[in-house]
């Protein structure tokens, strides 16, 4: 498939935003459960705001993908059948709850609403819980848009969902690490350890899907495409001289060298280098953590680019040669 750049930015930006919120929200629970030292100052407002901004940025990027962005509201209609429609609902839901969470924290509207056993649960924790549900739903919806297309064999796998989740979480925790270092607040140790763990997990899962896709063959051949069962079929004409939507939207034009380079780059920059940098980072090494974040984000952009390159659309068998 041809990489759709607005979609590449959409999925990576919201992934990082979702991961960031879950990083801080999970830390909040760990503090409540006395498994983590409470941090000195309240850092969650900032984190939730950044998470919100990333979700907004992703939404804006997605508009560039549409021919008619002014009709985008219509896309919520078919949630019963379409994962894209479900994403269109989950994204604003996540945005609204994360925003509400940030507002409650900022204005100190935090009342205690209930107690779970002996743990007091405040309003923000409750809203945060809804945000968490929306964010997890959003991860699933975003990935299922691709994973549900059974003709795109490289995407049609539970690994797609796992990859989207792990990569979003990894970049979110890396961002959380940077924020913790920059504000000198927040559980740096927890964030960096989780960032290392999630990046490693994402790397494993991505390598697994890379090797799965290596030997994947589409069941569609020119023979089944036109229904002629001769082993030798040569296309003489595509029915269009100057190309068509079919030749522009479903094929990438990158050479094998660029594709190989892209794959190496995303594996090294998206996973290996951030792993090393985060592993050796300290609570005061802002530069190292920021470098890890930057490299990882660039690497994940390249990963999403490669995700499109990797997918082979069956319609391409009808377009083997222009003449």
């Amino acid at each position: 498939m041809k990489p759709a750049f607005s979609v590449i930015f959409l999925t990576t930006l919201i992934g990082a935003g979702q991961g960031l919120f879950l990083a801080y929200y999970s830390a909040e629970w760990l503090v409540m459960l006395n498994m983590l030292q409470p941090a000195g100052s309240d850092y969650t407002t900032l984190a939730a705001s950044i998470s919100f901004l990333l979700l907004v940025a992703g939404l804006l990027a997605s508009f560039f993908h549409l021919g008619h962005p002014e009709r985008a509201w219509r896309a919520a209609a078919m949630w019963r059948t379409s994962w894209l429609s479900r994403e269109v609902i989950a994204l604003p839901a996540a945005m609204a709850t994360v925003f509400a969470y940030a507002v409650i924290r900022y204005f100190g509207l935090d009342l205690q609403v209930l107690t779970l056993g002996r743990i007091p649960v405040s309003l923000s924790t409750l809203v945060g819980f809804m945000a968490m549900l929306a964010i997890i739903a959003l991860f699933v919806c975003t990935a299922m848009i691709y994973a549900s297309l059974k003709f795109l064999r490289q995407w049609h796998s539970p690994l797609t969902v796992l990859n989207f989740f792990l990569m979003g979480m990894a970049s979110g925790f890396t961002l959380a690490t940077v924020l913790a270092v920059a504000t000198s607040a927040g559980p740096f140790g927890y964030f960096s350890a989780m960032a290392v763990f999630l990046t490693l997990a994402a790397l494993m899962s991505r390598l697994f899907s890379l090797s799965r896709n290596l030997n994947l063959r589409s069941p569609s051949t020119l023979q089944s495409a036109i229904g002629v069962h001769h082993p030798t079929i040569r296309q003489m004409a595509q029915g269009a001289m100057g190309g068509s939507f079919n030749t522009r939207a479903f094929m990438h034009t990158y050479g094998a060298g660029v594709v190989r380079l892209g794959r190496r780059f995303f594996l090294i920059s998206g996973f290996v280098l951030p792993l090393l940098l985060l592993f050796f980072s300290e609570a005061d090494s802002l530069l190292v953590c920021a470098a890890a974040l930057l490299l990882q984000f660039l690497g994940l952009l390249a990963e999403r680019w490669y995700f499109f390159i990797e997918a082979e659309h069956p319609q391409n068998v009808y377009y083997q040669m222009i003449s």
Partner: protein
Amino acid sequence: MTQLALVIDLNTCVGCHACVTSCKEWNTSGDAGPMVDRNPYGAEPTGTFFNRVQTFEVGEFPDTQTIHFPKSCLHCEDPPCVPVCPTGASYKRPEDGIVLVDYDKCIGCEYCSWACPYGAREIDEQQKVMKKCTLCVDRLYDESLPEAERKPVCVLSCPTSARIYGDIHDPESDASRAINAAGGYQLMPEWGTQPANHYLPRRKVSIAVHEEDLQRVDNPLRKEDRGQRAPTTRTTLDDSTSW
């Protein structure tokens, strides 16, 4: 239930593109607005088409066959392009099985084109909405047209009658008869989309022509040997007409 469809006979299609041009003409002039044409007279003409004819060469020289292959939306009975559409702009009509796009609802997200394994959908670069073959739904029920013309325009324009239109759920329709008689098949059956459009395969055609077919030996009207016949007493047909 009705499922309107085309049956395309690859055995007779000569690749003249009459269906392509008549399709473009009919649909670009319709209510739905023009179908974009970029560079129509330049070196790299491109634009929106609902139907295209591709050409394939099968076999190895000198034993080759040229196959002209018209390609358009197949109006699948289980269309994967429909459930993925987030707006409901893509839908399959329950009454006749035609798969359509509502251009006023489509947001141009291209998701349906990703879901169609045949590449039958195209974004119109000008209107920024998804377009595809409508089976000339604006002709089929138009009572201002003579009944014989209430068919897809490609069917009417095909000079070799390679395109047959009809209800494939009605075993008595021309389309069903053609499918049954000539072994009609579906494209990429491996995906389970059950395309409604069928294709008729290439088949060997041979006609045995016998001398008697050209020259009837027992022609009752033969006049070559008139005059040498035995005289009859009754008036014959020959006598009362002016042969």
